[in-house]
């Protein structure tokens, strides 16, 4: 059995997860630990105190719930519910993780109050001097715990309000403890001293676990901040050294070389990792083209210079497919630097792919080769646009001009929105 370095309580638990945590730490079977705990509890409540102390001072594990453990701990019905959906699943785990201390304590207080009233009305002499303070103390502890939980989670009302409420609950606890002594026999010096000490001890006991947890949370937060800082430093360092070197390799190797292709692929991966540049709008024409360019750059010694002008529009299928074909042609037959220029105007979208390759003439392509004719010109014509293939800048290379009226795009959009 694998042991844990410190005692951590699992999220899924029977009572507080203390026994499972201790068992995990010592490498002993849980059943043995539980038995010892029960035996200790019978020794004048020592086990209960130990349990409470461990529960208050040990952290809860970060690890996700082990499904096998869940299966062993949940009843068949709950198991089915857990299997039926992850939402149900997580809410259940959440429910199990947080013991309803407040509700239990308030329940005890109410039962105590109710029981006292019933017994009293039956004519039995009830020691109200003991029962009333006990109820007050229970209620105070319960309310204090609720406020502490909120304070720790940083939820609900503002922090100052919560502090005031927590103090109020603690005052209630103190009042309850005092009542034990006030309602008793006539006060003397000793009762006053004992009362004062009791109040301090009581309030301290209630607040202690919370203080312990708060300090631990602070420590964890600091550790998380340090990790984030470290990551930022690594990112800055990588940006400064590796990205620059990759740029230099590309500069020296020339766009057509294998070395440049590898350097570019690495640069892109590193950038994506460093800056998390996942495009927000996936169907945007520019980001779709960028993605296509990345894929093609990965397989061919080519560098696409993508420039987009105008508003961001969803990518029209026909334009994207024809553009992809033009880019692939440029990558296969020309390579090197290929320019992609996209302009989204008020009336039409232009996509121009220009390469510096050997050039291509439509007449030279056999009629039976479907590639260019069908996949670029035909496809766009069917969509209502046009495609022109001709010589590139200065009469060299190839230029593919694709054009699609905006009216066609918006009509298609409407068609997909309301089928």
């Amino acid at each position: 059995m694998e042991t844990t370095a410190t005692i951590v309580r699992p999220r899924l638990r029977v009572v507080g997860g203390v026994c499972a945590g201790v068992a995990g730490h010592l490498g002993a079977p849980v059943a043995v630990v539980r038995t010892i705990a029960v035996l200790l509890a019978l020794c004048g409540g020592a086990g209960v105190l130990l349990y409470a102390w461990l529960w208050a001072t040990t952290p809860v594990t970060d690890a996700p719930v082990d499904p096998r453990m869940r299966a062993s701990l949940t009843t068949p019905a709950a198991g089915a519910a857990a299997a039926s959906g992850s939402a149900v699943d997580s809410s259940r785990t959440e429910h199990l993780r947080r013991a309803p201390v407040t509700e239990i304590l308030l329940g005890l207080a109410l039962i105590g109050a109710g029981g006292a009233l019933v017994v009293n009305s039956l004519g039995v002499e009830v020691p109200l001097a003991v029962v009333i303070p006990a109820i007050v103390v229970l209620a105070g502890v319960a309310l204090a715990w609720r406020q502490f939980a909120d304070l720790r989670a940083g939820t609900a009302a503002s922090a100052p309000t919560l502090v005031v409420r927590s103090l109020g609950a603690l005052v209630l606890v103190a009042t309850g403890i005092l009542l034990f002594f006030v309602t008793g026999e006539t006060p003397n010096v000793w009762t006053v001293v004992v009362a004062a000490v009791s109040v301090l001890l009581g309030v301290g006991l209630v607040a202690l676990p919370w203080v312990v947890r708060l300090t631990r949370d602070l420590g964890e937060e600091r550790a998380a901040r340090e990790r984030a800082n470290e990551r930022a430093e690594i990112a800055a360092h990588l940006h400064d050294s590796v990205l620059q070197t990759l740029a230099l390799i590309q500069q020296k190797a020339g766009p057509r070389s294998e070395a440049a292709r590898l350097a570019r692929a690495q640069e892109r991966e590193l950038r994506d990792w460093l800056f998390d540049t996942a495009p927000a709008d996936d169907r945007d024409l520019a980001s779709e083209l960028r993605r296509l360019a990345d894929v093609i750059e990965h397989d061919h010694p080519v560098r696409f210079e993508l420039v987009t002008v105008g508003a961001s529009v969803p990518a029209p299928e026909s334009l994207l497919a024809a553009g992809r074909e033009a880019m692939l042609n440029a990558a296969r037959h020309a390579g090197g630097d290929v320019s992609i220029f996209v302009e989204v105007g008020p009336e039409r979208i232009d996509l121009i792919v220009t390469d510096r390759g050997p050039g291509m003439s439509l007449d030279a392509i056999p009629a039976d080769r479907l590639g260019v004719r069908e996949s670029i010109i035909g496809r766009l014509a069917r969509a209502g646009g046009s495609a022109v293939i001709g010589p590139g800048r200065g009469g060299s290379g190839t230029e593919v001009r694709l054009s699609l009226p905006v009216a066609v795009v918006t009509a298609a959009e409407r068609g997909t929105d309301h089928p």
Partner: protein
Amino acid sequence: MTQLRIAIVDDHSIFRSGLRAELDAALEVVGEAATVDEAIVLVEATRPRVVLLDVHLPGGHGGGGAEVIQRSAGASPETRFLALSVSDAADDVVRVIRAGARGYITKSSSGAEVSEAARRVAEGDAVFSPRLAGFVLDAFGAAAGETAATHDELDRLSQREQEVMRLIARGYSYREVAGELFISVKTVETHVSSVLRKLQLSNRHELTAWALERKLL
């Protein structure tokens, strides 16, 4: 032929030495600097014709390349700046251009391209990368069909300027632009310089918004 005196300002020594080795023989590198403060001292001491300037630089008041341009302007007014960047993000570029750089190219450009751009900047012309040209078209509303009515309008591009910018955005060299539009290379240069001036001086909100964001105004 007199050599063109240039300085390289970049905080990465690997990149500096790599670029230095790639530049052609007509360019004489008079010095290198790695931070904003070093760069300002270097420019003042050597008075190079052109400074190849990284957009992101440590030191100074955190202003990077733009700060070097602004603080060197008094000491060496005849020095021209050509911005280099790996990022290619429009706001980085616009920041140095509005600070006074005469052009911008990406760091993956070849040694020959950088040399050519440095020569062009030294002659008083502007250098636009395709990405920057695309950005200019966007920022001046050219894609939406906005065209300047008069010659001296700062907030919009003329028809001809738009045509030139479109071709540069498609990767055309100045010579190729000239051939395509049946004008001389000199005229192309004039158009590009005019666009650069508009980019530096325009109060179009797309441009001033950045300047405000970057606390340049």
